[in-house]
């Protein structure tokens, strides 16, 4: 699977800052094992924004938490998974070592700004904490720096705001404060897990603009996770589409929206209302997102797929290149398009076998 992921060497003009290979995160409950993230691979290059898009339950947040090392029992990152950040293998780190990566290496902005700030400390206190731990800045200097950071994320009257508690901030400002707090760590890489989902559209626009500006100023790499195709089109350079724990399509953003290949991506784009006039009606996907509680020996989208055929039920699709010009892959038995159905199935089967052999 991984062999096909980065098939096109021309796109990789810079070294990836983060490489995720064959990441598997499973949750063990009494009744079942949920493979929330099931063998996904992608990378993020310096200064670019990579998006992960998917519906709820697709495993996108678990991916983020896996990278941050925030998976708690009963969840576990399975052996064979690899997360390389700036050349360092994260899955093998001890707690203390991970701590040095968090903050100054990778920062994370969570979905709900209301809950991600500690309610009993002032915003300033929490920003200064970041400064002290990651950059050793304390005292008066820390206050100055914290003020500058709040101003940098567009909060007016920053000095006074430092002394306020999170509940005194509005939702948008709270998310700005969280971003400021993460910037205080001076990270190279920022994971944004649905940072605008809880916000209104005009506030969302502010935050997206802010992230773009910051990325430019600081040469940040961003992994942006969302369920909103509009947001992803706006902010991402490259996109991974996730479904039931797996990445089903990877492509540069323009390419993805211009030529969606995987039936799921297509359906997702078609079901966005508003762009179509009322008379046309909306494209809908039948059925529900399944819980990935069994091994991936088939295509998980098959039961809902309008183009599914028999083999979809028992062949695990692998990523194959679907475009000549772009670094665009899809995990679907319909591709490569130029082969006959039986050849396609065979190709996927052999890729799958290579992959499992490679693992052992």
């Amino acid at each position, binding site marked *: 699977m991984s062999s096909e992921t980065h098939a096109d060497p021309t796109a990789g003009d810079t070294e990836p800052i983060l490489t995720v290979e064959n990441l598997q995160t499973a949750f063990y409950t009494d009744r079942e094992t949920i493979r929330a993230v099931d063998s996904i691979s992608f990378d993020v290059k310096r200064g670019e924004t990579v998006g992960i898009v998917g519906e709820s339950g697709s495993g996108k947040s678990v991916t983020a938490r896996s990278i941050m090392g*925030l998976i708690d029992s009963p969840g576990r990152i399975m052996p064979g998974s690899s997360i390389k950040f700036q050349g360092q293998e994260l899955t093998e780190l001890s707690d203390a070592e991970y*701590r040095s990566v*968090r*903050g100054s290496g990778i920062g994370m902005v969570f979905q709900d700004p209301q809950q991600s700030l*500690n*309610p*009993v*400390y002032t915003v300033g206190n929490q920003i200064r904490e970041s400064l002290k731990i*990651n950059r050793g800045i304390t005292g008066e200097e820390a206050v100055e720096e914290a003020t500058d950071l709040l101003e940098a994320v567009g909060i007016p009257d920053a000095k006074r705001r430092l002394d306020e*508690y999170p509940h005194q901030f509005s939702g948008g400002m709270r998310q700005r404060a969280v971003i400021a707090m993460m910037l205080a760590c001076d990270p190279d890489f920022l994971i944004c897990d649905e940072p605008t989902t809880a916000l209104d559209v005009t506030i969302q626009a502010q935050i997206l603009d802010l992230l773009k500006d910051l990325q430019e100023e600081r040469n940040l790499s961003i992994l942006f996770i969302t369920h909103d195709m509009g947001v992803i089109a706006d902010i991402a350079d490259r996109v991974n589409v996730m479904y039931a724990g797996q990445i089903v399509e990877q492509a540069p953003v323009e390419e993805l929206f211009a030529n969606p290949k995987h039936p799921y991506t297509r359906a997702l784009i078609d079901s966005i209302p508003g762009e179509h006039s009322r008379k046309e009606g909306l494209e809908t996907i039948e059925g529900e997102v399944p819980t990935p509680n069994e091994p991936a020996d088939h295509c998980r989208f098959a039961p809902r797929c309008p183009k599914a055929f028999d083999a979809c039920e028992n062949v695990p699709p692998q990523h194959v290149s679907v475009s000549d010009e772009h670094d665009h892959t899809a995990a679907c038995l319909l591709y490569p398009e130029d082969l006959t159905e039986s050849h396609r199935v065979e190709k996927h089967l052999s890729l799958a076998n290579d992959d499992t052999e490679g693992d052992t």
Partner: protein
Amino acid sequence: MNRGLYLIKRLLLAVPVMLFGLTLSFLILYLGPIDPVGTILGRQATPEDIRQLRIQLNIIYPNGEPVPLWDQYLRVMWDLFTLEFGQSWTVQRQTPVIDLIVGRMPATIWLGFWSVLIALFVGIPLGLYAGLRANTYRDYFASGFGIIWRAMPNFWLAVILAGLITAGGALDWYKDFIVTTTVTGTPDVLNNLFTLYHVFEGIPLLEALAIPVPNLIPMAIAFKWILPAALVLGSSSMGNEVRIGRTAVLESINSKYVDTAKSKGVSGRKIIYKHVGRNAIIPLLPVIMGEFYLLIGGSVLVEQVFGINGLGNLFFRSILGPDIPLVMALVFIFVIIQVTVNIVQDLLYTYIDPRISLEDTQ
């Protein structure tokens, strides 16, 4: 709304609460089947004595008409709120109630002080520890203590502990441990805990001020003497603190802001001290304040078993008397303590939890 206005509002709300408690006690005592005259004068009273006493007690007017209940009520309330507690009927006849209360106060305060303190310093750390080690054997061990402490009737624990410390018991050595003391009764060292130094001698106005300096030996003796009783009195609070502390830590440790703090690279230790600890204190506040409530009720039993001459014991005797002025005065004092504790708790909330808005009533 600022804090001053908030305090005024809270005080206003406390008035009906106090009136409710006091009225209830009044109704029980005055509508219930108590015969004050018989209680005070016994059987051999002359009719004239009875008449005099009734007038004195505001039961009848001098002309023989009965005083209506509401009139008695207003009189009683007025006396209470003007701190005119009157004289004791039966516990110590003719003694001013206030003297009785003041005389018993030190023992109860000393007992209560240590029971609160011991419960705090044992219960809370143990609870936090259990929460941090949730679902391990250490947690089960610590929580087990909490469960048992909560379930033990404190009078029973008092009986067992007092019994074990008496001659021949397993804890007999305690009496001769370091200094020889008893563990029952009220030692007179209580009057000797502090030496007052009148440092402002000769300076007008300040002359009356004195600086209390603790006397270590009497202090130690008094502490050793009160320790078993204080342990017993604080036991159920201790149990509550273990339990709530554990839950509070668990609640906080699973929150998003702890994840965020981890993402910043904050160390595990610091997360616990700074982010978890502070938030876990908030739900503990009412438990700590609730100690006063348990203390007032519990002191009756514990003082009874350990033979301590405190307010609890006084209350018990006054009720058996029955000694209505004394009962009303004590209830008045207890209600005031209770209401004050509630107000203090609400004010403390606004300090330790910045989210509590002063706008809210509760």
